[in-house]
């Protein structure tokens, strides 16, 4: 509780400082030569606030949020499915993994954001170019985790399942897949965050809808308050997404030991 109060206090202080330093004419300008320059570059908190309110009251923001969320969800799901499938395949087939190794390494070290303009050409300015960017970002996170997860399954566990009569298929279903899934979930926060980044960056580079598009538009007209409003909405959205992932994770991973599970009396 005390923690919460302190956290809110920090927020209030930050906003107050922002206001004091940017309100035209409130304090004498000490860096810019004109009084309204600070507001021009850094926006003003009360105006940013009203932009956000306006967005939600008029309902204008919802379509953009929906588009960004859809792109994130699609990017994540497609990337995760490919990562899981290819990760399992390469981890279980040493030859394929040896052949593919340099290519995987190369693709992974390439800064994949540079692919965004190419995707825009291939998939147009609709949602699919953003989804494609999200997929390339998510795929590698999931892929490496699955690969690692399968490689690190205890040989004992495999031997035990074989002695209990598991066929190759059953080994895959009962041992490799659950082991890989636990690593996928460990990287879930990361992967969802990256899908989100893919969506927003994609929108920012060219689109007709989405929160990234709103920011791009505002920037074109030097409307710094709207840019900040967009950034704040994105941040809040990312936080909400993250806690949603956390909730899913807690539900699905009940079997994993967690630190400090004793109940307080």
């Amino acid at each position, binding site marked *: 509780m005390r923690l919460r109060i302190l956290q809110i206090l920090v927020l209030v202080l930050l906003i107050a400082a922002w206001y004091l330093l940017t309100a035209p004419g409130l304090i004498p300008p000490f860096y810019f030569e004109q009084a309204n320059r600070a507001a021009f570059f850094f926006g003003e908190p009360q105006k940013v606030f009203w932009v956000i309110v306006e967005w939600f009251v008029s309902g204008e923001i919802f379509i953009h949020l929906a588009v960004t969320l859809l792109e994130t969800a699609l990017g994540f799901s497609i990337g995760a499915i490919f990562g899981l499938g290819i990760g399992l395949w390469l981890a279980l087939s040493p030859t394929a993994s040896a052949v593919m190794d340099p290519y995987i390494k190369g693709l992974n070290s390439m800064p994949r954001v540079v692919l965004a303009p190419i995707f825009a050409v291939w998939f147009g300015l609709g949602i699919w170019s953003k989804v494609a960017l999200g997929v390339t970002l998510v795929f590698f996170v999931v892929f490496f985790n699955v690969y690692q997860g399968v490689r690190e399954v*205890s040989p*004992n*566990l495999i*031997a*035990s*399942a*074989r*002695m*209990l*009569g*598991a*066929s190759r298929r*059953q080994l895959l279903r*009962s*041992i490799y897949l*659950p*082991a890989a*899934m*636990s690593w996928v979930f460990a990287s879930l926060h990361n992967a969802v965050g990256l899908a989100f980044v893919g969506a927003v960056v994609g929108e920012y580079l060219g689109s007709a809808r989405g929160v990234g598009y709103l920011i791009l538009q505002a920037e074109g007209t030097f409307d710094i308050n709207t840019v900040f409003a967009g950034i704040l909405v994105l941040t809040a959205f990312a936080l909400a997404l993250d806690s949603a992932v956390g909730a899913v994770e807690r539900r699905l991973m*009940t*079997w*994993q*030991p967690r630190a400090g599970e004793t109940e307080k009396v």
Partner: protein
Amino acid sequence: MNGVPALALADITCRFAARDGRSDAYTAVANATLEVAKGEFVSVVGPTGCGKSTLLNVAAGLLEPSSGTVEVFGERLLSTEGVNRRAGYMFQADALMPWRSGIDNVIAGLEFRGMARAEALVQGEAWLRRVGLAGFGDRYPHQMSGGMRKRLALAQTLILSPDILLMDEPFSALDVQTRQLMENELLALWAEDRKSVLFITHDLEEAIALSDRVVVLSAGPATRPIGDFRVDLPRPRDVSEIRMTPAFAKLHREIWGAMREEVLKAYEAQKVL
């Protein structure tokens, strides 16, 4: 105990290639021959690192020996045909599936054999009760104590009613009291239908208290059996009481005499490393 043995290891040699490729291959087991008759409880004792687990893995069909043959009820065990289907294996280390609850771990083998879940659950619950875990079926392995996990593994293995039971130091991680409880439970379960058991331990007292026969292995490298002792103690036994009898003490002295030197050898060898 007549006819073909349940398990016959003949002239088994296991060499492990050295990882770094420079030093020589390590011969863990050399020319080991060992038989377990139908319904016989055989213990194998030997100093740590001598190759007990290796030998058991060979018997399970999990490890192909460099040379030698394994016969299960008179039939050759071939590595091309997979593991030893008539054996159940209780591992030295924890081998439960952490993502499955207790009951789901117990019925895993039945599930692999394609039994309907409802039927498997009935059997699973019965086995949980037999190993004293009734009501703990919905706990995950990490929510159980070490002893509970061992009992769960026991139920997981025994539910398939294997003809041969391979056990690798199953109780070595438990405290003395729990251990004696589990040893008695094992003997009671074994008495019901007399499986053939190959039981590995480095605890001589445990070996004598449980078995019909105790086989002593030499220290590594190139481990092989160097002693084979029949244990003619009456059954049913209570493992804590039988330790007090003079017959037990006599056997213990006799076998320890054979083991002592090997244990010291193994200890010296490890000190050098």
